[in-house]
């Protein structure tokens, strides 16, 4: 098992790292602004179904998205707006899916966080936790069959998802096949309302890595610096043939499970604990302290993010709603084998 040691690097690397950090920070801001807007639309009754935010998990999520490149696979979970945007998802795709636009990637057939573009490597999650891990494994197997070298696949999960059989089967499968999988666990203290004490009994989830025969990394999930470096290391190790990487980040979910949840069950002591600090604030302080950016620049970036999100919402609000009479109501691509399907 490897516990990644943060390497402060040399001067040249520091400059590259600063650029990455700034890019990551701006991605976090965009995700936070997008999430805040979605929450506001939800409260205004403009969104059908639930809204699930990534507040407090942006640093970890953005680091996953940024550590991947074109040709890689990413299967995000519900708190990964930042990672999705960093991987290349557009704000418009997110807003269209949340607002049920037929022009979105899910065409109003599925909503909120259940979105993706499989052909572009962004796999759309199903609600069943742990189920996406083996799907990413399969994509990586396909790359191996096709001789497509150097790609990796990353997927995210919470502490609750680690209790599923799917998690166990898939992590073991990845280990047996020695696949370049990066499995990122956000240990955010609660699975909906269930505390980790009812979820697992091991001291730290990363201890499981050795049992599966994979590499483990643990980190403070609200420290962008640590997130970027650890994910970079984990992805590079997977890419260079060192097999699956289990990354476990300790942090606190700074919102309810969904916007319907006031999360009154959260132990108030967590909110004042180090891991309860808002990752966006931590990153901001770091930026200012390092003099990598000035307060005015931060404000400009935030305003740019707001404008981008507002523009997307304005576009989607003008789009048509789905028409049940234009829906083909056919679940098969082989239309001739679909029962009750009348060729239009």
């Amino acid at each position, binding site marked *: 098992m490897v516990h990644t040691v943060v390497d402060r690097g040399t001067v040249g690397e520091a400059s590259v790292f600063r650029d990455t950090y700034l890019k990551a920070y701006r991605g976090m801001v965009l995700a936070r602004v997008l999430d805040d807007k979605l929450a506001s639309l939800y409260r205004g009754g403009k969104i059908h179904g639930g809204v699930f935010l990534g507040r407090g998990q942006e640093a970890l999520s953005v680091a996953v998205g940024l550590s991947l490149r074109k040709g890689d696979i990413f299967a995000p979970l519900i708190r990964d707006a930042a990672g999705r945007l960093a991987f290349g998802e557009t704000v418009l795709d997110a807003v269209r899916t949340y607002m049920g636009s037929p022009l979105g990637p899910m*065409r109003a057939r599925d909503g909120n966080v259940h979105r993706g573009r499989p052909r572009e490597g962004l*796999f759309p999650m199903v609600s069943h936790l742990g189920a996406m891990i083996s799907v990413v494994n399969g994509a990586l197997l396909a790359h191996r*069959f096709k001789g497509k070298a150097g790609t990796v696949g990353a997927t995210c999960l919470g502490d609750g998802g680690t209790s599923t059989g799917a998690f166990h*089967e*898939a992590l073991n499968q990845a280990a047996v096949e020695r696949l370049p999988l990066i499995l990122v666990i956000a240990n955010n203290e609660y699975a909906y309302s269930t505390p980790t004490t009812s979820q697992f009994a091991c001291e730290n989830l990363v201890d499981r890595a050795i049992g599966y025969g994979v590499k483990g990394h643990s980190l403070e999930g609200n420290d962008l610096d640590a997130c970027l470096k650890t994910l970079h290391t984990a992805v590079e190790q997977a890419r260079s043939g060192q097999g699956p990487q289990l990354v476990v980040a300790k942090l606190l979910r700074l919102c309810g499970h969904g916007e319907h949840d006031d999360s009154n069950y959260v132990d108030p002591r967590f909110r004042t604990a180090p891991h309860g600090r808002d990752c966006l604030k931590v990153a901001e302080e770091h930026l200012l302290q390092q003099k990598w950016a000035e307060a005015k620049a931060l404000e400009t970036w935030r305003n740019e993010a707001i404008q981008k999100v507002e523009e997307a919402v304005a576009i989607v609000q003008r789009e048509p709603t789905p028409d049940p009479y234009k829906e083909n109501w056919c679940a098969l691509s082989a239309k001739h084998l679909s029962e009750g399907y009348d060729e239009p």
Partner: protein
Amino acid sequence: MSITYLEAIREAQAKALADDPRVYIYGQDVGAFGGAFKATKNLAKEFPGRVLDAPISEDAMVGSAIGAAIEGMRPIIEMQFADFSTIGFNQIVNQAASLFWRTNVTCPITIRLPGGGTSGGGPFHSQSLEAIYAHFPGLIVMTPATVEDAYSMLLEAVAIDDPVIFFEHKYLYYHLKAEKLPTEAMPTGKARIARAGRDMTIVAYSAMVHEALAVAEELATEGTEVEVVDLRSVKPLDTDTIMASVARTGRLLCVGESWPWGGVTAEVVARVSTEGFDLLDAPPQRLNAKDTPVPYHPNLWAAHRPTARSIAAAARNLLRL
């Protein structure tokens, strides 16, 4: 020279592997060992690197097939027994079955389910699970009853861009033989008139087709001509062929090896009753296994599922109605 139902399945997989580099096989013991039933015998040797042993992880087996299919492969998953597919149920019905509808990206996977009862199999090695898979939109469920169909429908399953549940009957593996492999085939979605008759229709699929044919033979000696319809696939269900047969005979008995609550026989009876009520001269009947787990002992097992004897009794009863 003759070929069994099991050998036909092996030959179809060999042809699929030979014809299409995107095809691979993944399942427990399918590699060097050749599978629990030897349905993949020598394939790992003939196609190195393309017949992979899986850990005992049905969920991950199916999940990985979905991911591989998204990336352009055409996996064949062997469940060691149909019964164990329930561990992979979530991936099959929620992920594979919904992928195309949700994303417009196809999911061409074939999941082979060796199912149905054999003597001594017991509750967890005998199940017929076609109905629960047919219940979910987005899946095709094949139930071949002949050596020819086992071969040609498996090849078609691999070629279809949607997830296919290929329910192969273990009892037919060694019992059923044909002279040679077919060179042409009926398309999936079309039922077959396995035997023509004018007095009553028995609709069956998989191993029950052969029980029904035995009954038709027996009743012929009594002057009753039974028409046997082999559904071939339960989803899609060829309602047209069933209805046309009932229009000729006026009497319907539907036989399935699975449990009585809901399922294929209930679906057939419901369709004929609602869409072809005026074609019926007597109330439509159905015969299934008893509503208990599948028993272990041969005496109990033989009484649990429909057999030629119980089907013949039901058929004679129907003629009196």
